[in-house]
């Protein structure tokens, strides 16, 4: 399981772990359904155990952000490693998320 989701303080925290490559992102599409359903709340993506993100993984994050944005929710990304920060930066998506 890539996304382990827990309800916390009225919002949702998803611990994202492993390698979010294309096959994993396809599988994870089902896993993020509860986040999309509750996108009107605060969603925290805790990425401390996320080792790698591919374009498909970025698309998954963007899907969650888009849903939150249309439902009035918020997405926070926490604890991403330096390599993944670089990916967010070079793609221009850094500004799109609240990265802490």
């Amino acid at each position, binding site marked *: 399981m890539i996304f382990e989701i827990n309800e916390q303080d009225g919002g949702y925290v998803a611990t994202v772990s492993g390698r979010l490559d294309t096959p994993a992102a396809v599988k994870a599409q089902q896993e993020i359904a509860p986040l999309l359903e509750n996108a009107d709340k605060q969603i925290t993506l805790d990425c401390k155990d996320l080792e790698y993100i591919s374009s498909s993984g970025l698309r998954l994050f963007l899907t969650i952000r888009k849903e939150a944005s249309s439902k009035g929710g918020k997405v926070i990304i926490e604890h991403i490693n330096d390599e993944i920060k670089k990916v967010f930066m*070079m793609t221009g998506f850094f500004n*799109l998320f609240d990265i802490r």
Partner: protein
Amino acid sequence: MIDYGLDLHGEMLLEEYCDKQPLFEELQRVVMEKLGALVRQSGIEVNSMESRIKAEGSLAGKLRLKGHKYASLLDITDIFGARIITFYNEDVDRIASMAEVLFEIDWDNSVDKRRMHQFDSFGYNSLHYICRLPEEQYYDPEKPELNKIRFELQMRTALQHVWSAIQHDIGYKSEIETPLEYHRNLSRLAGMLELADNEFSRIRNAIADYRRRAQSLVQSGQLEEVPLDLDTFRSYLDKRPFDRLNRKIAAITQAELHEAPWWPYLKVLRIIGMNTLGDVERLMRDNFDDAYQLALFQLGSTDIDILAETVGLQNLCIVHLLKTGGGRLSLDTINSKMPQNETLAEMVIEQASRLEFMNVKR
């Protein structure tokens, strides 16, 4: 029925009013629906739309005072009343002209209080139309009387409404009931609010003129004369000035460009000293190749096939900051101040240090 101390005629009118309550409620529903649709269609932003059916006690009070004036209930024109409160004077007139098309106006009983004041007096300003719902707009064969009932439509600005509401709250009616000193103070306030209403309209018109002028300068390419602000930046983006750079960067990995908000970059552009759209054009012209080189260096060895549509502008800003000695500060400018900027800045500087533009002596 409560005894309001009415004469027989008054009691008959009040009884008729009670019997016709469902009819007034129907009229209220239809009129408010029509007005709501009209306002939405016009695109006018209104402060509020409200309506009420006169309460029984209030009507009884009116009938006690001047019931003899009304031969039938249909002679009372304010049992149902609607009110539209706008932000600007001009919108009162626009809504009035639309109401004239929508309803049948009883001009003999309608009144424009705004024109009733002497040149040296100030007070209640509102436009009151006495209307009927014409059959072309709505007709229920089971309730033909609906089209005969007259109702009052009040239209005024928010400031006029505030004055009127406070005046009502104070219980002020005329100088006979209130000492002249208070009358004068309320008139002074009415004058001040009239001035404020005019000033708001003037400012709105001036802003609209400015936007039109700026848009036309942007369209004709006279960018040096256009100051950089939210409106002009929007007009500029309509011309899609960063498309060529974005497409070139996206071609590195055949990436798709994903929609992303541009507005954070307005702030960044201002911070890095771009004051006109001409400055932004120069930023692009002077840094186009280097922004592309930076992207090529970063993305060339990856298979990332999705990029934000702001990536070109982001790289232009980074390159400009690096060239002008912004260094580590550059990412504080672009990403807002956050702890990870330090790491990212090191990465960008390290990558850029190998690029030609960082090694050219200026």
